[in-house]
């Protein structure tokens, strides 16, 4: 199956070549894939997104969406875009904004009315805000209306730039669920974000971009198998109920390592998911049943820690 999005030696220079935002970037994204892009500020993430939308013209190299150039009208009919900078037409109300974009997409008015109501409810934008001018919206409300307009016309490709920025935890979870549903319906999603924990929950693969180049592309399922640190917690009254000696022996027996023990929790270095499962099982058998076990950092964060890479610097 041909890739949904393909960039070949994509280069974008600014200021007559003094700044090279993208440097022969190669990337291939499959149909129906949720693809994350991370990297420090100035890495070229937004430049790449702008090239995808046909807003920036590559200096050299090619980029294609569904086999077509990004500025083809056929492509623009299939894409939804949530920008990082939510510069909407401020004098419009939320509903007017939605109608405007539905009109630009050529959605028939009757269908648009139903679709707009469904989407505004989907993103849980307060009904009172539907008829309020956008200039009075909070950042979270802007993010919700932004997501709603991006979903207009049932796009086959969704480009999201920092989608959960400014959202409250409920909104973050809501967006994540929306993305999961979209993935199930086969939408190809590209997410540009700094929030590693959010990316790892929805993405199939994540590319780390730095200096305009793809440094590494990680499959989220593969990252699960790598080493990391887990936090074990016991629900007991006295410190003496958790024997340090027994804990040390069991941990050593499964090949793990105690990094820190501060009652009632311990930080254990493990080499993979399999080891953590075995450790929890063995601790139970040894009379130290664990009440709670969780990774000390997100999978993606742990991965970058191991690689010695700070995705935000």
């Amino acid at each position, binding site marked *: 199956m041909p890739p949904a999005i393909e960039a070949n030696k994509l280069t974008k220079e600014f200021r007559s070549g003094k700044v090279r935002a993208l440097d022969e970037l190669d990337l291939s994204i499959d149909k129906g894939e949720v693809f994350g892009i991370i990297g420090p500020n100035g890495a070229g993430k937004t430049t790449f997104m*702008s090239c995808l939308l046909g807003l920036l013209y590559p200096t050299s190299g090619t980029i294609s969406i569904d086999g077509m150039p990004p500025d083809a009208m056929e492509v623009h009919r299939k894409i939804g*875009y949530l920008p990082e900078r939510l510069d909407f037409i401020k004098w*419009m109300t939320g509903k007017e904004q939605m109608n405007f974009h539905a009109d630009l997409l050529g959605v028939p008015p009757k269908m648009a009315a139903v679709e707009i109501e469904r989407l505004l409810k989907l993103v849980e934008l307060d009904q009172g805000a539907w008829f309020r001018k956008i200039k009075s919206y909070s950042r979270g409300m802007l993010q919700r209306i932004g997501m709603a307009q991006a979903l207009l016309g049932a796009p086959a490709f969704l480009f999201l730039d920092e989608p959960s920025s400014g959202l409250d935890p409920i909104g973050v979870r809501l967006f994540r669920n929306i993305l999961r549903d979209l993935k199930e319906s086969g939408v190809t999603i590209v997410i540009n974000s700094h929030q590693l924990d959010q990316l790892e929950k929805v993405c199939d693969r994540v590319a780390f971009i730095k200096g305009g180049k793809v440094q590494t592309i990680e499959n989220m399922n593969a990252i699960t198998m790598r080493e990391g640190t887990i936090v074990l917690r016991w629900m007991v009254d006295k410190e003496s109920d958790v024997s340090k000696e027994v804990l040390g022996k069991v941990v050593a027996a499964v090949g793990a390592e105690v990094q820190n023990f501060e009652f009632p929790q311990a930080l254990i270095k493990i080499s993979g998911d399999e080891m953590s499962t075995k450790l929890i099982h063995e601790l139970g058998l040894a009379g130290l049943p664990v009440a709670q076990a969780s990774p000390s950092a997100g999978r993606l964060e742990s991965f970058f820690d191991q690689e010695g890479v700070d995705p935000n610097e």
Partner: protein
Amino acid sequence: MNKSIALMTIKQLWNRPVRLVLLAGFVGFPLLIDVMNRQMGFKDHTSSAMVIINTSMFVLIIGAGIIGQDISDGILPLIFSRPIKRWQYILTKWLAVAFMASIVAFLNLFIHLLFAHGFTFELVKGIMPFDLAQIVLLAMGTTSVMLLLSSLLPGAADVGVILLVCAACFVITILQHFFHVPGMEDTAMNVFAILFPSFDLGDIHSLRQLLSIEIGRYFAVVLVCLSGSVLLVNEKEFSYGSN
């Protein structure tokens, strides 16, 4: 022509109160002069020609930042991510602003004639089809110039440039009148003819007269401005990132 962009452009005006006040001022001021003339016993009224010339002023007020303001407001990247060609956006903006300026100019002419003649047959006679066509010509011509300047300049700087050039023309005209520098007035008139392109429809009595310099200049200016704007906006790159 894109319906959504046209409607957006028209609604944009209603959401800019300063411009509405200015429009009201430019419609109301000549009427105020007429009222004062009447009070003082003069029978002269502001001429229809003067009212038509005001069309350019309406274009400047309505069309200020016709493209530059949208760029400065940051709304274009999202609009251009939709299935709309950039030339469609530009031509729609041109037609929408010219249409609005024409409507305001028609209303202005109508109010002016109503004040001068009351509800009489003279009022109907005063509205010449040529005047209406003249208004549309001037509105479309001036809007095309604004469009080109707005493609080059941010915000509403296009109006600033036009006013600056007008001021310069005024100065060079003074040079001829007071210091007898030859050719200055002609230069100023030519610059004005480019800034506010139009031609007198009353001068056309036969098909041959369509080949006049004025008509040629009008279409040349409008075409150059429109194609220049399309070229400039097509070349323009938009990004939310820091370039």
